[in-house]
């Protein structure tokens, strides 16, 4: 059974449909890279998958939950789907440990001791065990982003969604974060990641999806897709990245 299955979903703002019949199936342990021009609907698709946006048509099956137009109670779903944003969105008034422990404590009622141990574990996973007491504004962008990943991991999600998590970072910091994600991939996490880093998509993702004007224009195994793009749109999209 696929971990995530999008069945012909539609998402419209008024007359403008920014997702126009998307079908996608993601198997457990798949790492799917989503690429495409700005405005092609990548973020919107991700946001629909964990219910930050309502869909207008179709349905989404995800780790045993079903989202349809009008579905409202998404909390149980979100417990199992992590999401990391471009702008980190750490909570500035909480330190690293508190940021990480918050959701397990209040959403899952995990006892404090256990939440604390999980926090240390996930921090070690992202290589920041020593920053447990720091506040977000005391960290570099790359460190903040890794804490955000750790925060998601602490909920022990079955699927993780990443939305251009490195585009606000300079090249060096980008490296740190991509390394963390690659390790997660190696550990078998199911992931969908929107990215502008073609090289990374190619190396880490086993599948790549190219979006164009609200549709999935082309998709396939990453090697194949980058080596032999079929559509002229994809070809012109990846051209500058390849030279």
């Amino acid at each position, binding site marked *: 059974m696929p971990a995530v299955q999008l069945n012909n979903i539609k998402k419209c703002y008024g007359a403008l449909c920014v997702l126009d019949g998307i079908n996608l199936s993601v198997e457990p342990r798949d790492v799917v890279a989503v690429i495409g021009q700005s405005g092609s609907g990548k973020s919107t698709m991700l946001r629909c998958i964990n219910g930050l946006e309502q869909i207008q048509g179709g349905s989404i099956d995800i780790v045993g939950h079903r989202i349809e137009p009008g579905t409202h109670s998404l*909390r149980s779903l979100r417990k199992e789907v992590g999401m990391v944003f471009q702008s980190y969105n750490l909570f500035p008034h909480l330190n690293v440990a508190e940021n990480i422990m918050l959701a397990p404590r209040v959403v899952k009622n995990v006892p404090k001791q256990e939440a604390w141990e999980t926090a240390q574990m996930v921090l070690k996973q992202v290589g920041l065990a020593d920053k447990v007491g720091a506040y977000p504004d005391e960290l570099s962008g790359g460190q903040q982003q890794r804490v955000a990943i750790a925060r998601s991991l602490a909920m022990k999600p079955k699927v993780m969604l990443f939305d251009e998590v490195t585009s606000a970072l300079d090249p060096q910091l980008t490296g740190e974060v991509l390394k963390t994600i690659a390790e997660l991939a190696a550990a078998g996490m199911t992931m969908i990641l929107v990215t502008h880093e073609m090289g990374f998509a190619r190396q880490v993702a086993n599948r790549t999806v190219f979006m164009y004007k609200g549709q999935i224009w082309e998709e396939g195994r990453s090697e194949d897709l980058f080596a032999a793009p079929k559509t002229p749109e994809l070809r012109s999209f990846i051209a500058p990245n390849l030279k």
Partner: protein
Amino acid sequence: MAYQMHFGPVLDRAPEFVDGTINTILLSGQGIVIGLAIGLAVAIIRVEGPRWLDQIAVAYIEIIRNTPLLVQVFLFFFGLPYIGLRLSADTSAIIAISFNLGAYSAEIFRAGFLAIPKSQIEAGLALGLTRLQTIRYVVIVPALKVVFPALTGQLTLTLLGSSVVCAISANELTLAASKVESLTFRSLETFLVAGAIYVTLTFVFRFTYWLISLWLFHRKDPARFQIAGALPHGQERVEA
């Protein structure tokens, strides 16, 4: 100056002033606690609530903010009995003060909420928090930090504004002062003393707000946090 000050007879009435001061603290203290609760609830309604509820909230806020507290006090005390709700002067005063502060603080809280980026709220939701949990754990503290100066300014106005409830014989400092004045006829001295007490009270209240802000916004020392947090993991530290 033709007039000779005599503070003696006024200061002989110190117990009355002490009583009045305590009552003013209790009155405005309760008004502040209830008023802030109302304000927070109304602000949440304004940000999150359905449209019809939002419109009621707006009407409440505008009516309160555009009429004098004194008139509101009169209405609560003399008016409510006409619809069968009889409240003591002190209760009416607390309610009037609370509703008054509620309207002002609602707008202040709302400004704070709007100052928090939408992405913070989405991050909370994406972690599986409910909207209310998101507000409780993610939004309130940073929002409060943004508006804390405005809020404490309003609370000072509430403390000082509580003096008008003497018009309905609610027990507080100004009423005590009037009583002393009518017994001693030393008006100027009486009101100078009352004024001095109010000034002192204001500074005491402000100091309290400052302490609260330390408690709310001051960061825990990371080093201390690590030690405290790591305590159950003694062996880990030894190992490291």
